[in-house]
């Protein structure tokens, strides 16, 4: 025994060193190739583009990291806090953007690489959203101009018209939409008119230039802004009358509700079509259709590509982000994956406008969304939008669950929203 451990000290130190050295190690540059990681959430439709980019740039290898929305932003926050682990290109959604603009020094100012030259590529408000005081945080990808998706078969069963133009004419305003919900419920008591009060509310609110915060000084105006109150009371009324299916968007229950045909309408931003297709599968293919949304337009969602400062290859990352958001690629994304570009030259392209979607009864989605995009009035979100928004969503949820009436829920939401700002 003694013999075996004649140099135990050295052995222990060696063991400890081994342990430490194996814990540290990096591998971004493999065999002279630069590896770029691109983190996105949901469906960006980038995979074929990555393959093409790799073919055109032999020195670049692209790793795609796709997670769900919540996981994506939780990881980004922890990675920024820890100072490592973030991807080279990270997609940030428009509602999340103000939160990250508060710590924009954690991201590369893309103006340093010449992003300002690209400015005119985008619709002006899209560019403005991604920029703060000359600091270019992100390059715009898609936008979420709004339309209204509805089930033709369910409308027919309720004795309502099914033609796109006729349906749009039935609901020029949200009040008309709510009235239609009543007519529908009288004929079709088992099917709900809307998916949730939250999604009706969000669509309405997104048509308003200001939401919870004043564009002038970022002060909390939820209690004074009539748009917020009107949207809340209209959506809350639907909830109180049991005219919503009370399923939270993108949850398992929402997917099942689409497959089972539990609701007849949903305000759908361009990117939602893919999600409806995935949830519905072949069972409900051809039963859905798309028409103009009450109030004609509105934006909901849409993202930006950012480069965190911790990236080891910011220049290469910027080049890839610029390429991915260039009009040529955005057009391909729309035609192949239905992702609506935020660049007028693309959404006014004849090929894009002529695009129809077979799953949605050959609805002219290109034309519908382009028209919506042209009428779009961008809205001011405010720095604490992401803190306040959920409180109003939960209040509408409480109405759907029957634990509060609209007045109580409104009072609570205004109060909790104020507390959430801190």
């Amino acid at each position, binding site marked *: 025994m003694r013999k075996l451990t004649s140099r135990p000290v050295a052995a*222990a130190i060696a063991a400890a060193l081994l*342990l430490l050295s194996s814990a540290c190690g990096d591998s971004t540059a493999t065999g002279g190739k630069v590896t770029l990681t691109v983190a996105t959430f949901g469906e960006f439709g980038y995979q074929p583009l990555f393959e093409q980019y790799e073919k055109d740039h032999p020195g670049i290898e692209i790793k795609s990291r796709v997670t769900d929305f919540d996981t994506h932003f939780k990881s980004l926050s922890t990675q920024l806090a820890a100072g490592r682990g973030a991807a080279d290109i990270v997609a940030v959604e428009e509602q999340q953007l103000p939160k990250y603009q508060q710590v924009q020094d954690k991201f590369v100012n893309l103006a340093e690489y010449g992003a300002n030259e690209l400015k005119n590529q985008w619709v002006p408000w899209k560019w403005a959203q991604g920029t703060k005081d000359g600091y270019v945080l992100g390059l715009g990808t898609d936008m979420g101009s709004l339309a209204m998706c509805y089930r033709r078969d369910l409308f027919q069963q309720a004795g309502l018209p099914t033609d796109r133009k006729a349906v749009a004419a039935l609901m020029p305003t949200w009040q008309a939409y709510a009235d239609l919900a009543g007519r529908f419920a009288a004929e079709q008591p088992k099917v709900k008119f809307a998916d949730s009060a939250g999604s009706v509310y969000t669509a309405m609110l997104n048509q308003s230039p200001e939401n919870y915060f004043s564009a002038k000084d970022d002060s909390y105006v939820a209690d004074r802004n009539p748009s917020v109150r009107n949207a809340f009371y209209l959506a809350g009324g639907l909830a109180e009358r049991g005219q919503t299916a009370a399923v939270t968007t993108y949850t398992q229950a929402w997917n099942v509700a689409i497959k089972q045909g539990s609701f007849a309408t949903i305000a759908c931003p361009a990117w939602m079509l893919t999600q409806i297709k995935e949830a519905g599968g072949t069972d409900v293919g051809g039963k859905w259709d798309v028409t103009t949304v009450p109030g004609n337009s509105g934006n909901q969602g849409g993202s930006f590509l950012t480069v965190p400062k911790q990236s080891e290859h910011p220049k290469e990352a910027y080049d890839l982000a610029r390429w991915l958001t260039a009009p040529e690629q955005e057009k391909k994304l729309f035609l192949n994956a239905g992702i609506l570009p935020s660049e007028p030259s693309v959404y006014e392209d004849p090929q894009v406008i002529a695009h129809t979607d077979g799953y949605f009864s050959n609805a002219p989605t290109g034309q519908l969304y382009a028209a919506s995009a042209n009428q779009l009035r961008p809205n001011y979100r405010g720095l604490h939008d992401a803190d306040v928004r*959920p409180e109003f969503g*939960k209040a509408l*949820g*409480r109405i759907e669950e029957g*634990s509060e009436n609209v007045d109580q829920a409104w009072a609570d939401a205004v109060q909790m929203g104020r507390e959430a700002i801190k």
Partner: protein
Amino acid sequence: MRDRGTFGARLDRKATPFLFIAPFFAVFAVFGAFPMLYTVWVSLHDWDLLAGDRGGFGFGNYVQLFGDPRFYNALGNTISIFLLAAIPELFVALCIAALLNHRLRGSTWWQTGVLLPNVVSVAAVGLVFAQLYGRDFGVVNEVLGWFGVSPVSWQAHRWSSHLAVASMVMWRWTGYNALIYLAAMQAVPQELYETAALDGASRWRTFWSVTVPGIRPAIAFTVVAGTVNGLQLFAEPQLFDAGGGGTGGNDRQFQTLAMYLYEKGITKFDAGYAAALSWVLFLVCVLFAVFNYRLLRRLVRSS
């Protein structure tokens, strides 16, 4: 030369054992002690997860915490779910262990079987249970419907959400506890059972007077470990709250302390508050573990 040799040997004898255990302490210092102490530091500041220290040294976070109704709401939920899960869980585990302790055909199969729920990833358990408890198309409501019960919106009410989350916890931990009890039961001296049989004690009596006191250390372990796990409950309720953003329902009706910590620290970036909360959670765990341990000692001794 000779002196140096003995000095070296002496040092060797003294220092070597410590060096051998050093890797553990090194790892513990880096991944255990340092984060804990750092959390104290963070909890004493107004600390943003991304922006870092924003000054304001003091007990502000703690003061705010003790005046925060959402903290007490989360504390109440945590304790309620813990009690709903732990008490039936330990009794059922005791019964399963007693059954397995008898010679059963294929006992290895059964013993492995009861551990299976614990091996399955908690994420999978959460997803499956969330579907079972689905409001519109869930199996549980379907079965209840056979008995004329109208569909329950499990996430919507405090009582129903607590029951549902507690059932997930029970599903995961009952088998694990049963195996610990079983191992302890097999170490109870056979003579005690023979004596009890000679005295004419019933099987029920033998179980409560011989088996249960005989496995007291195992019960103590499961109670303390169960308390610590139960009070830190996170994954099950978080996954049960599909799309809710981690607030545990629209009225925070099943938000646990760990979920509130996560909401504050990761969703709202308020790392200072979250750090303070984690220390209070730690103290709550210690208090409960000591209380439960004492309670158990009294209960088992009196029987």
